Protein backbone atom coordinates (compact mmCIF):
# COMPACT_ATOMS: atom_id res chain seq x y z
CA UNK A 1 0.00 0.00 0.00
CA UNK A 2 1.57 3.29 -1.06
CA UNK A 3 1.73 6.37 1.15
CA UNK A 4 -0.95 8.05 -0.96
CA UNK A 5 -3.46 5.26 -0.35
CA UNK A 6 -6.36 5.89 2.01
CA UNK A 7 -9.28 3.69 3.04
CA UNK A 8 -12.61 5.51 3.12
CA UNK A 9 -15.72 3.88 4.58
CA UNK A 10 -18.94 4.40 2.58
CA UNK A 11 -22.17 3.64 4.40
CA UNK A 12 -23.94 1.85 6.00
CA UNK A 13 -25.62 5.22 6.66
CA UNK A 14 -25.14 7.54 3.70
CA UNK A 15 -27.38 10.25 2.19
CA UNK A 16 -27.72 8.43 -1.15
CA UNK A 17 -28.37 4.99 0.32
CA UNK A 18 -31.97 4.26 1.26
CA UNK A 19 -30.74 1.02 2.85
CA UNK A 20 -27.60 0.01 4.73
CA UNK A 21 -24.65 -1.13 2.64
CA UNK A 22 -21.04 -0.67 3.68
CA UNK A 23 -18.21 -0.47 1.16
CA UNK A 24 -14.59 0.14 2.04
CA UNK A 25 -12.99 2.22 -0.70
CA UNK A 26 -9.26 2.19 -1.19
CA UNK A 27 -8.41 5.52 -2.82
CA UNK A 28 -5.28 7.12 -4.18
CA UNK A 29 -5.85 10.86 -4.07
CA UNK A 30 -9.35 11.18 -5.56
CA UNK A 31 -9.27 7.91 -7.53
CA UNK A 32 -10.82 4.71 -6.26
CA UNK A 33 -8.46 1.75 -6.69
CA UNK A 34 -10.37 -0.92 -4.75
CA UNK A 35 -13.73 -1.64 -3.13
CA UNK A 36 -14.69 -4.28 -0.56
CA UNK A 37 -18.38 -4.68 0.35
CA UNK A 38 -19.69 -5.59 3.76
CA UNK A 39 -23.20 -6.99 4.05
CA UNK A 40 -25.33 -8.29 6.89
CA UNK A 41 -26.96 -5.17 8.35
CA UNK A 42 -30.50 -6.22 7.44
CA UNK A 43 -30.18 -10.00 7.11
CA UNK A 44 -33.44 -11.48 8.45
CA UNK A 45 -33.19 -15.14 7.46
CA UNK A 46 -36.63 -15.08 5.82
CA UNK A 47 -35.88 -18.21 3.80
CA UNK A 48 -35.74 -20.25 7.00
CA UNK A 49 -39.38 -19.39 7.76
CA UNK A 50 -40.44 -22.20 5.39
CA UNK A 51 -39.99 -24.47 8.40
CA UNK A 52 -42.64 -22.70 10.45
CA UNK A 53 -45.04 -21.18 7.89
CA UNK A 54 -47.00 -23.34 5.47
CA UNK A 55 -46.68 -22.78 1.74
CA UNK A 56 -49.78 -20.56 1.61
CA UNK A 57 -48.60 -18.38 4.49
CA UNK A 58 -45.21 -18.07 2.79
CA UNK A 59 -46.82 -15.95 0.04
CA UNK A 60 -47.12 -13.15 2.59
CA UNK A 61 -43.58 -13.73 3.84
CA UNK A 62 -41.99 -13.54 0.38
CA UNK A 63 -43.86 -10.29 -0.25
CA UNK A 64 -42.00 -8.83 2.68
CA UNK A 65 -38.59 -9.73 1.29
CA UNK A 66 -38.81 -6.41 -0.54
CA UNK A 67 -41.48 -3.77 -0.25
CA UNK A 68 -40.80 -2.11 -3.54
CA UNK A 69 -41.44 -5.22 -5.64
CA UNK A 70 -43.47 -7.29 -3.21
CA UNK A 71 -46.05 -8.31 -5.79
CA UNK A 72 -43.36 -9.66 -8.12
CA UNK A 73 -41.81 -11.80 -5.38
CA UNK A 74 -45.21 -13.33 -4.72
CA UNK A 75 -45.78 -13.77 -8.45
CA UNK A 76 -42.51 -15.73 -8.82
CA UNK A 77 -43.13 -17.85 -5.73
CA UNK A 78 -46.69 -18.71 -6.79
CA UNK A 79 -45.61 -19.52 -10.34
CA UNK A 80 -42.90 -21.88 -9.05
CA UNK A 81 -45.39 -23.72 -6.84
CA UNK A 82 -48.05 -23.79 -9.54
CA UNK A 83 -45.52 -25.37 -11.94
CA UNK A 84 -44.63 -27.94 -9.31
CA UNK A 85 -48.29 -28.79 -8.66
CA UNK A 86 -49.20 -28.89 -12.34
CA UNK A 87 -51.77 -26.11 -12.22
CA UNK A 88 -52.07 -22.84 -14.13
CA UNK A 89 -53.68 -19.68 -12.83
CA UNK A 90 -56.77 -18.64 -14.85
CA UNK A 91 -56.24 -16.18 -17.74
CA UNK A 92 -57.77 -13.21 -15.90
CA UNK A 93 -55.49 -13.84 -12.93
CA UNK A 94 -52.48 -13.95 -15.27
CA UNK A 95 -53.41 -10.56 -16.73
CA UNK A 96 -54.05 -9.07 -13.30
CA UNK A 97 -50.64 -10.31 -12.14
CA UNK A 98 -49.05 -8.48 -15.06
CA UNK A 99 -50.97 -5.27 -14.26
CA UNK A 100 -49.94 -5.19 -10.60
CA UNK A 101 -46.37 -6.27 -11.44
CA UNK A 102 -45.99 -3.46 -13.95
CA UNK A 103 -47.44 -0.95 -11.49
CA UNK A 104 -44.70 -2.03 -9.10
CA UNK A 105 -42.10 -1.68 -11.84
CA UNK A 106 -43.26 1.87 -12.53
CA UNK A 107 -43.24 3.01 -8.93
CA UNK A 108 -39.89 1.35 -8.30
CA UNK A 109 -38.30 3.01 -11.33
CA UNK A 110 -39.82 6.40 -10.46
CA UNK A 111 -38.53 6.11 -6.93
CA UNK A 112 -35.10 5.26 -8.31
CA UNK A 113 -35.12 8.03 -10.92
CA UNK A 114 -35.86 10.51 -8.12
CA UNK A 115 -33.10 9.13 -5.88
CA UNK A 116 -30.68 9.08 -8.80
CA UNK A 117 -31.39 12.75 -9.59
CA UNK A 118 -30.90 13.50 -5.91
CA UNK A 119 -27.54 11.66 -5.97
CA UNK A 120 -26.10 14.14 -8.44
CA UNK A 121 -27.82 17.11 -6.84
CA UNK A 122 -30.83 17.68 -9.11
CA UNK A 123 -33.34 18.23 -6.30
CA UNK A 124 -36.23 19.57 -8.39
CA UNK A 125 -36.26 16.52 -10.70
CA UNK A 126 -36.17 14.31 -7.62
CA UNK A 127 -39.33 16.04 -6.37
CA UNK A 128 -41.02 15.82 -9.76
CA UNK A 129 -40.45 12.08 -10.14
CA UNK A 130 -41.76 11.43 -6.66
CA UNK A 131 -44.76 13.66 -7.32
CA UNK A 132 -45.88 11.70 -10.38
CA UNK A 133 -45.12 8.44 -8.56
CA UNK A 134 -48.09 9.21 -6.34
CA UNK A 135 -50.41 8.41 -9.26
CA UNK A 136 -49.16 4.81 -9.15
CA UNK A 137 -49.36 4.59 -5.39
CA UNK A 138 -52.97 5.81 -5.58
CA UNK A 139 -53.78 3.15 -8.18
CA UNK A 140 -52.22 0.44 -5.99
CA UNK A 141 -54.18 1.61 -2.97
CA UNK A 142 -57.46 1.84 -4.88
CA UNK A 143 -57.14 -1.58 -6.52
CA UNK A 144 -55.39 -3.66 -3.87
CA UNK A 145 -56.10 -1.80 -0.65
CA UNK A 146 -52.43 -1.08 0.07
CA UNK A 147 -49.83 1.23 -1.40
CA UNK A 148 -46.80 -1.05 -1.19
CA UNK A 149 -47.50 -4.60 0.03
CA UNK A 150 -50.37 -5.55 -2.24
CA UNK A 151 -51.04 -9.16 -1.11
CA UNK A 152 -53.01 -9.96 -4.25
CA UNK A 153 -51.29 -13.22 -5.24
CA UNK A 154 -52.21 -16.64 -3.93
CA UNK A 155 -51.10 -20.05 -5.11
CA UNK A 156 -53.47 -20.75 -7.99
CA UNK A 157 -54.44 -17.19 -8.91
CA UNK A 158 -55.20 -13.80 -7.37
CA UNK A 159 -57.45 -12.61 -4.56
CA UNK A 160 -58.75 -9.38 -6.06
CA UNK A 161 -60.46 -8.36 -9.26
CA UNK A 162 -60.85 -5.07 -11.13
CA UNK A 163 -64.32 -3.67 -11.74
CA UNK A 164 -65.07 -1.92 -15.09
CA UNK A 165 -65.27 1.54 -13.45
CA UNK A 166 -61.91 0.91 -11.75
CA UNK A 167 -60.41 0.07 -15.13
CA UNK A 168 -61.71 3.33 -16.64
CA UNK A 169 -60.36 5.29 -13.67
CA UNK A 170 -56.96 3.56 -13.93
CA UNK A 171 -56.69 4.40 -17.61
CA UNK A 172 -57.31 8.07 -16.76
CA UNK A 173 -54.64 8.09 -14.04
CA UNK A 174 -52.19 6.39 -16.39
CA UNK A 175 -52.76 9.20 -18.92
CA UNK A 176 -51.87 11.77 -16.25
CA UNK A 177 -48.79 9.76 -15.31
CA UNK A 178 -47.72 9.51 -18.93
CA UNK A 179 -48.13 13.27 -19.37
CA UNK A 180 -45.91 13.84 -16.33
CA UNK A 181 -43.25 11.48 -17.69
CA UNK A 182 -43.27 13.14 -21.11
CA UNK A 183 -42.74 16.53 -19.47
CA UNK A 184 -39.68 15.16 -17.67
CA UNK A 185 -38.13 13.47 -20.69
CA UNK A 186 -36.04 16.41 -21.84
CA UNK A 187 -35.07 17.41 -18.33
CA UNK A 188 -33.85 13.97 -17.40
CA UNK A 189 -32.35 12.73 -20.63
CA UNK A 190 -31.19 15.82 -22.54
CA UNK A 191 -30.01 18.11 -19.75
CA UNK A 192 -26.33 19.08 -19.93
CA UNK A 193 -25.76 18.64 -16.19
CA UNK A 194 -27.36 15.19 -16.08
CA UNK A 195 -25.25 14.00 -18.99
CA UNK A 196 -22.12 15.53 -17.52
CA UNK A 197 -22.61 13.61 -14.27
CA UNK A 198 -23.68 10.28 -15.77
CA UNK A 199 -22.23 9.78 -19.26
CA UNK A 200 -19.07 7.66 -19.37
CA UNK A 201 -19.30 7.08 -15.61
CA UNK A 202 -19.44 3.55 -14.14
CA UNK A 203 -18.74 1.85 -17.45
CA UNK A 204 -19.58 -1.86 -17.73
CA UNK A 205 -18.71 -3.48 -21.05
CA UNK A 206 -21.00 -5.98 -22.73
CA UNK A 207 -18.65 -8.92 -22.08
CA UNK A 208 -18.07 -7.93 -18.46
CA UNK A 209 -21.82 -7.69 -17.88
CA UNK A 210 -22.16 -11.33 -18.95
CA UNK A 211 -19.10 -12.63 -17.10
CA UNK A 212 -20.02 -10.82 -13.90
CA UNK A 213 -23.60 -12.08 -13.98
CA UNK A 214 -25.31 -8.67 -14.19
CA UNK A 215 -29.11 -8.58 -14.24
CA UNK A 216 -31.92 -6.27 -15.32
CA UNK A 217 -31.27 -2.67 -16.41
CA UNK A 218 -27.58 -3.11 -15.50
CA UNK A 219 -27.38 -5.93 -18.06
CA UNK A 220 -29.62 -4.28 -20.66
CA UNK A 221 -27.78 -0.97 -20.26
CA UNK A 222 -24.69 -2.83 -21.51
CA UNK A 223 -26.38 -4.01 -24.67
CA UNK A 224 -27.87 -7.40 -23.76
CA UNK A 225 -31.42 -8.02 -24.92
CA UNK A 226 -32.24 -10.12 -21.87
CA UNK A 227 -35.45 -9.74 -19.94
CA UNK A 228 -37.23 -12.59 -18.19
CA UNK A 229 -40.56 -11.26 -19.46
CA UNK A 230 -39.46 -12.51 -22.89
CA UNK A 231 -40.07 -16.02 -21.59
CA UNK A 232 -43.75 -15.16 -21.50
CA UNK A 233 -44.66 -16.05 -17.91
CA UNK A 234 -48.01 -14.78 -16.58
CA UNK A 235 -49.67 -12.98 -19.51
CA UNK A 236 -46.52 -11.50 -21.10
CA UNK A 237 -46.82 -14.07 -23.83
CA UNK A 238 -50.06 -12.42 -24.97
CA UNK A 239 -48.86 -8.84 -24.68
CA UNK A 240 -46.73 -6.77 -26.97
CA UNK A 241 -43.63 -6.76 -24.81
CA UNK A 242 -40.27 -5.56 -26.16
CA UNK A 243 -37.19 -5.24 -23.91
CA UNK A 244 -35.57 -1.81 -23.58
CA UNK A 245 -31.87 -2.01 -24.44
CA UNK A 246 -29.08 0.60 -24.45
CA UNK A 247 -25.53 -0.01 -25.58
CA UNK A 248 -23.33 2.54 -23.81
CA UNK A 249 -22.90 0.59 -20.53
CA UNK A 250 -22.61 3.72 -18.35
CA UNK A 251 -24.82 5.26 -15.65
CA UNK A 252 -26.67 7.29 -18.26
CA UNK A 253 -27.53 4.15 -20.26
CA UNK A 254 -28.89 2.44 -17.15
CA UNK A 255 -30.99 5.51 -16.31
CA UNK A 256 -32.30 5.62 -19.86
CA UNK A 257 -33.32 1.95 -19.74
CA UNK A 258 -35.32 2.57 -16.58
CA UNK A 259 -36.88 5.75 -17.93
CA UNK A 260 -38.17 4.06 -21.07
CA UNK A 261 -39.22 0.96 -19.12
CA UNK A 262 -41.64 3.20 -17.20
CA UNK A 263 -43.25 4.30 -20.46
CA UNK A 264 -43.31 0.74 -21.79
CA UNK A 265 -44.83 -0.56 -18.55
CA UNK A 266 -47.67 1.94 -18.98
CA UNK A 267 -48.29 0.59 -22.48
CA UNK A 268 -48.34 -2.97 -21.12
CA UNK A 269 -50.83 -2.05 -18.39
CA UNK A 270 -53.10 -0.28 -20.88
CA UNK A 271 -52.97 -3.26 -23.22
CA UNK A 272 -53.67 -5.70 -20.37
CA UNK A 273 -56.57 -3.59 -19.08
CA UNK A 274 -58.13 -3.34 -22.52
CA UNK A 275 -57.78 -7.05 -23.16
CA UNK A 276 -58.60 -8.36 -19.67
CA UNK A 277 -60.24 -11.77 -20.30
CA UNK A 278 -63.27 -13.04 -18.39
CA UNK A 279 -62.54 -16.04 -16.20
CA UNK A 280 -62.32 -17.24 -12.61
CA UNK A 281 -59.65 -15.68 -10.40
CA UNK A 282 -58.28 -18.90 -8.91
CA UNK A 283 -58.07 -22.60 -9.61
CA UNK A 284 -58.37 -25.33 -7.01
CA UNK A 285 -55.02 -26.32 -5.56
CA UNK A 286 -54.53 -30.12 -5.46
CA UNK A 287 -53.01 -31.09 -2.10
CA UNK A 288 -49.50 -30.18 -1.06
CA UNK A 289 -46.51 -29.52 -3.31
CA UNK A 290 -43.93 -32.25 -3.84
CA UNK A 291 -40.64 -32.03 -5.77
CA UNK A 292 -38.18 -29.35 -6.84
CA UNK A 293 -38.77 -26.33 -9.05
CA UNK A 294 -37.04 -23.17 -10.19
CA UNK A 295 -38.70 -20.09 -11.59
CA UNK A 296 -37.48 -16.70 -12.82
CA UNK A 297 -39.34 -13.44 -13.30
CA UNK A 298 -38.25 -9.90 -14.07
CA UNK A 299 -38.21 -7.52 -11.12
CA UNK A 300 -37.65 -3.77 -11.61
CA UNK A 301 -33.99 -4.38 -10.74
CA UNK A 302 -33.64 -7.49 -12.87
CA UNK A 303 -33.94 -11.23 -12.82
CA UNK A 304 -35.47 -12.73 -9.68
CA UNK A 305 -34.83 -16.43 -9.14
CA UNK A 306 -36.61 -18.88 -6.81
CA UNK A 307 -35.58 -22.44 -6.03
CA UNK A 308 -38.15 -24.43 -4.06
CA UNK A 309 -37.96 -27.96 -2.70
CA UNK A 310 -41.10 -29.52 -1.28
CA UNK A 311 -41.77 -32.90 0.33
CA UNK A 312 -45.52 -33.41 0.04
CA UNK A 313 -46.33 -31.75 3.38
CA UNK A 314 -47.70 -28.25 3.80
CA UNK A 315 -44.25 -27.03 4.85
CA UNK A 316 -41.61 -26.54 2.18
CA UNK A 317 -38.26 -28.18 2.73
CA UNK A 318 -36.17 -25.39 1.26
CA UNK A 319 -36.66 -22.08 -0.48
CA UNK A 320 -33.79 -20.11 -1.94
CA UNK A 321 -34.20 -16.65 -3.39
CA UNK A 322 -31.63 -14.89 -5.57
CA UNK A 323 -32.51 -11.26 -5.99
CA UNK A 324 -31.16 -8.99 -8.74
CA UNK A 325 -29.12 -6.73 -6.47
CA UNK A 326 -27.24 -9.81 -5.25
CA UNK A 327 -26.32 -10.42 -8.89
CA UNK A 328 -25.41 -6.77 -9.50
CA UNK A 329 -22.96 -6.37 -6.59
CA UNK A 330 -20.02 -8.06 -8.42
CA UNK A 331 -20.52 -5.81 -11.51
CA UNK A 332 -20.64 -2.81 -9.15
CA UNK A 333 -17.30 -3.82 -7.62
CA UNK A 334 -15.93 -3.97 -11.15
CA UNK A 335 -17.27 -0.52 -12.12
CA UNK A 336 -15.87 1.34 -9.12
CA UNK A 337 -12.06 1.02 -9.44
CA UNK A 338 -10.75 3.86 -11.56
CA UNK A 339 -13.63 6.23 -10.86
CA UNK A 340 -13.35 9.55 -9.03
CA UNK A 341 -14.60 9.74 -5.46
CA UNK A 342 -17.43 12.25 -6.21
CA UNK A 343 -18.84 9.79 -8.79
CA UNK A 344 -19.10 6.95 -6.28
CA UNK A 345 -22.68 7.72 -5.09
CA UNK A 346 -23.91 7.98 -8.69
CA UNK A 347 -22.31 4.66 -9.65
CA UNK A 348 -23.50 2.83 -6.53
CA UNK A 349 -27.03 4.07 -7.11
CA UNK A 350 -26.93 3.19 -10.81
CA UNK A 351 -27.47 -0.52 -10.04
CA UNK A 352 -30.52 0.44 -7.93
CA UNK A 353 -29.29 -1.42 -4.85
CA UNK A 354 -31.99 -3.04 -2.72
CA UNK A 355 -30.27 -4.40 0.35
CA UNK A 356 -33.30 -5.85 2.13
CA UNK A 357 -33.86 -7.94 -1.02
CA UNK A 358 -30.22 -8.93 -1.20
CA UNK A 359 -29.87 -10.08 2.38
CA UNK A 360 -33.42 -11.36 2.87
Amino acid at each position, binding site marked *: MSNRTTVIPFGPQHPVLPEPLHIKFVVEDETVVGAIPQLGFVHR*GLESLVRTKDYNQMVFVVERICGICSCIHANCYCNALENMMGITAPPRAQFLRVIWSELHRIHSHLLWLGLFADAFGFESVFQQFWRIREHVMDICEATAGNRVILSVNVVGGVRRDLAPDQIRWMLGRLDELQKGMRELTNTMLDDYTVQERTRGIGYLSKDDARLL*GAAGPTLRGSGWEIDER*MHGYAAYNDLNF*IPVVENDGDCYARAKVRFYEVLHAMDLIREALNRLPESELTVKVPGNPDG*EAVFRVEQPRGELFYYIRANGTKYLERMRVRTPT*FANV*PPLLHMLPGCKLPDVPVIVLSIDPCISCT*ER
Partner: protein
Amino acid sequence: MFFEAKDVTPETLLAEVQRLANARCRFVTMSQTVVDENTLRLFYHFDENLTMSDLRHNPEMCVWSPTDAKGMVHLRMDVDKNMPIPSISSIYFCAVLIENETQDQFGVRFAGLPLDYQGGMYLEGEVTHAPYFTMTTVRRPAAAAKAESAKGDQA
Protein backbone atom coordinates in the same frame (compact mmCIF):
# COMPACT_ATOMS: atom_id res chain seq x y z
CA MET B 1 -38.03 -32.93 -10.43
CA PHE B 2 -39.27 -29.98 -12.44
CA PHE B 3 -35.93 -29.12 -13.90
CA GLU B 4 -33.22 -31.32 -15.30
CA ALA B 5 -29.80 -31.10 -13.67
CA LYS B 6 -26.53 -32.68 -14.73
CA ASP B 7 -24.66 -34.50 -11.95
CA VAL B 8 -21.10 -33.41 -11.30
CA THR B 9 -18.55 -34.21 -8.59
CA PRO B 10 -16.03 -31.91 -6.87
CA GLU B 11 -13.43 -33.37 -9.25
CA THR B 12 -15.37 -32.60 -12.43
CA LEU B 13 -17.06 -29.37 -11.35
CA LEU B 14 -14.47 -26.88 -12.54
CA ALA B 15 -14.09 -28.52 -15.95
CA GLU B 16 -17.84 -28.50 -16.43
CA VAL B 17 -18.16 -24.87 -15.34
CA GLN B 18 -15.30 -23.90 -17.65
CA ARG B 19 -17.12 -25.61 -20.50
CA LEU B 20 -20.23 -23.53 -19.76
CA ALA B 21 -18.12 -20.36 -19.52
CA ASN B 22 -16.63 -21.16 -22.93
CA ALA B 23 -20.17 -21.57 -24.25
CA ARG B 24 -20.86 -18.00 -23.03
CA CYS B 25 -23.37 -19.00 -20.38
CA ARG B 26 -24.18 -16.48 -17.66
CA PHE B 27 -23.91 -17.67 -14.05
CA VAL B 28 -27.24 -17.04 -12.33
CA THR B 29 -26.80 -18.43 -8.83
CA MET B 30 -26.41 -21.48 -6.63
CA SER B 31 -29.06 -23.21 -4.56
CA GLN B 32 -28.38 -25.45 -1.59
CA THR B 33 -30.38 -28.11 0.14
CA VAL B 34 -29.49 -30.52 2.94
CA VAL B 35 -29.61 -34.20 1.92
CA ASP B 36 -28.61 -35.80 5.22
CA GLU B 37 -26.62 -34.85 8.29
CA ASN B 38 -23.33 -35.00 6.41
CA THR B 39 -24.28 -34.17 2.85
CA LEU B 40 -25.15 -30.89 1.23
CA ARG B 41 -26.56 -30.74 -2.30
CA LEU B 42 -25.50 -27.77 -4.40
CA PHE B 43 -27.17 -26.66 -7.61
CA TYR B 44 -25.34 -24.34 -10.00
CA HIS B 45 -27.74 -22.47 -12.28
CA PHE B 46 -26.61 -20.98 -15.58
CA ASP B 47 -28.43 -18.94 -18.18
CA GLU B 48 -27.74 -19.95 -21.74
CA ASN B 49 -30.10 -17.59 -23.50
CA LEU B 50 -27.68 -14.73 -24.03
CA THR B 51 -27.60 -15.30 -27.75
CA MET B 52 -31.28 -15.12 -28.42
CA SER B 53 -33.02 -12.12 -29.87
CA ASP B 54 -36.58 -12.64 -28.74
CA LEU B 55 -37.71 -16.07 -27.70
CA ARG B 56 -41.38 -15.38 -28.34
CA HIS B 57 -41.39 -13.43 -31.56
CA ASN B 58 -38.34 -14.88 -33.30
CA PRO B 59 -37.82 -18.44 -32.08
CA GLU B 60 -35.99 -19.23 -35.30
CA MET B 61 -33.33 -16.72 -34.29
CA CYS B 62 -32.37 -18.77 -31.23
CA VAL B 63 -29.00 -20.33 -31.85
CA TRP B 64 -28.98 -22.51 -28.78
CA SER B 65 -30.66 -25.70 -27.63
CA PRO B 66 -32.20 -24.93 -24.26
CA THR B 67 -32.01 -27.70 -21.68
CA ASP B 68 -35.38 -26.65 -20.36
CA ALA B 69 -38.09 -24.27 -21.50
CA LYS B 70 -36.55 -21.37 -19.67
CA GLY B 71 -33.13 -21.52 -21.28
CA MET B 72 -31.21 -22.65 -18.23
CA VAL B 73 -28.54 -25.25 -17.50
CA HIS B 74 -28.33 -26.74 -14.01
CA LEU B 75 -25.49 -28.69 -12.40
CA ARG B 76 -26.08 -30.78 -9.28
CA MET B 77 -23.33 -31.80 -6.87
CA ASP B 78 -23.52 -33.62 -3.53
CA VAL B 79 -20.70 -32.70 -1.16
CA ASP B 80 -19.49 -33.87 2.21
CA LYS B 81 -19.91 -30.96 4.61
CA ASN B 82 -16.47 -31.62 6.10
CA MET B 83 -14.59 -31.50 2.81
CA PRO B 84 -13.55 -28.25 1.10
CA ILE B 85 -15.60 -27.45 -1.99
CA PRO B 86 -13.85 -26.10 -5.10
CA SER B 87 -14.77 -22.49 -5.68
CA ILE B 88 -15.87 -21.56 -9.19
CA SER B 89 -15.08 -17.87 -8.61
CA SER B 90 -11.82 -18.23 -10.55
CA ILE B 91 -14.03 -18.82 -13.61
CA TYR B 92 -17.07 -16.73 -12.63
CA PHE B 93 -15.99 -14.05 -10.16
CA CYS B 94 -19.65 -13.28 -9.50
CA ALA B 95 -19.96 -16.61 -7.64
CA VAL B 96 -17.92 -15.17 -4.78
CA LEU B 97 -20.94 -13.76 -2.91
CA ILE B 98 -23.13 -16.83 -3.14
CA GLU B 99 -20.24 -19.08 -2.12
CA ASN B 100 -19.66 -16.88 0.91
CA GLU B 101 -23.37 -16.96 1.67
CA THR B 102 -23.27 -20.77 1.50
CA GLN B 103 -20.39 -20.77 3.98
CA ASP B 104 -22.47 -18.63 6.34
CA GLN B 105 -25.65 -20.59 6.09
CA PHE B 106 -24.39 -24.15 5.86
CA GLY B 107 -21.03 -24.05 7.61
CA VAL B 108 -19.09 -25.56 4.70
CA ARG B 109 -15.79 -24.28 3.28
CA PHE B 110 -14.96 -23.26 -0.27
CA ALA B 111 -11.34 -23.60 -1.33
CA GLY B 112 -9.77 -20.78 -3.33
CA LEU B 113 -12.20 -17.96 -2.64
CA PRO B 114 -10.65 -14.63 -3.72
CA LEU B 115 -12.72 -12.75 -1.13
CA ASP B 116 -13.39 -14.94 1.91
CA TYR B 117 -15.55 -13.59 4.74
CA GLN B 118 -14.88 -16.87 6.62
CA GLY B 119 -18.49 -17.40 7.62
CA GLY B 120 -19.04 -13.78 8.60
CA MET B 121 -20.70 -12.24 5.55
CA TYR B 122 -24.09 -12.07 7.27
CA LEU B 123 -23.47 -13.62 10.66
CA GLU B 124 -22.06 -11.93 13.70
CA GLY B 125 -19.02 -13.39 15.46
CA GLU B 126 -21.05 -14.89 18.30
CA VAL B 127 -23.10 -17.13 15.98
CA THR B 128 -21.56 -20.57 16.27
CA HIS B 129 -24.00 -22.78 14.36
CA ALA B 130 -24.85 -22.64 10.68
CA PRO B 131 -28.53 -21.64 10.67
CA TYR B 132 -29.60 -23.81 7.75
CA PHE B 133 -27.54 -26.86 8.72
CA THR B 134 -28.16 -26.75 12.43
CA MET B 135 -25.81 -29.54 13.44
CA THR B 136 -22.91 -27.80 11.73
CA THR B 137 -20.55 -25.33 13.29
CA VAL B 138 -19.71 -22.19 11.37
CA ARG B 139 -16.08 -22.46 10.33
CA ARG B 140 -13.99 -19.38 10.93
CA PRO B 141 -10.34 -20.31 10.39
CA ALA B 142 -9.06 -16.88 11.38
CA ALA B 143 -11.04 -16.90 14.62
CA ALA B 144 -9.97 -20.49 15.34
CA ALA B 145 -6.32 -19.62 14.77
CA LYS B 146 -6.65 -16.61 17.06
CA ALA B 147 -8.23 -18.76 19.78
CA GLU B 148 -5.44 -21.35 19.40
CA SER B 149 -2.79 -18.69 19.68
CA ALA B 150 -4.50 -17.19 22.75
CA LYS B 151 -4.50 -20.66 24.31
CA GLY B 152 -0.81 -21.00 23.55
CA ASP B 153 -0.09 -17.62 25.12
CA GLN B 154 -1.94 -18.60 28.28
CA ALA B 155 -0.01 -21.88 28.50
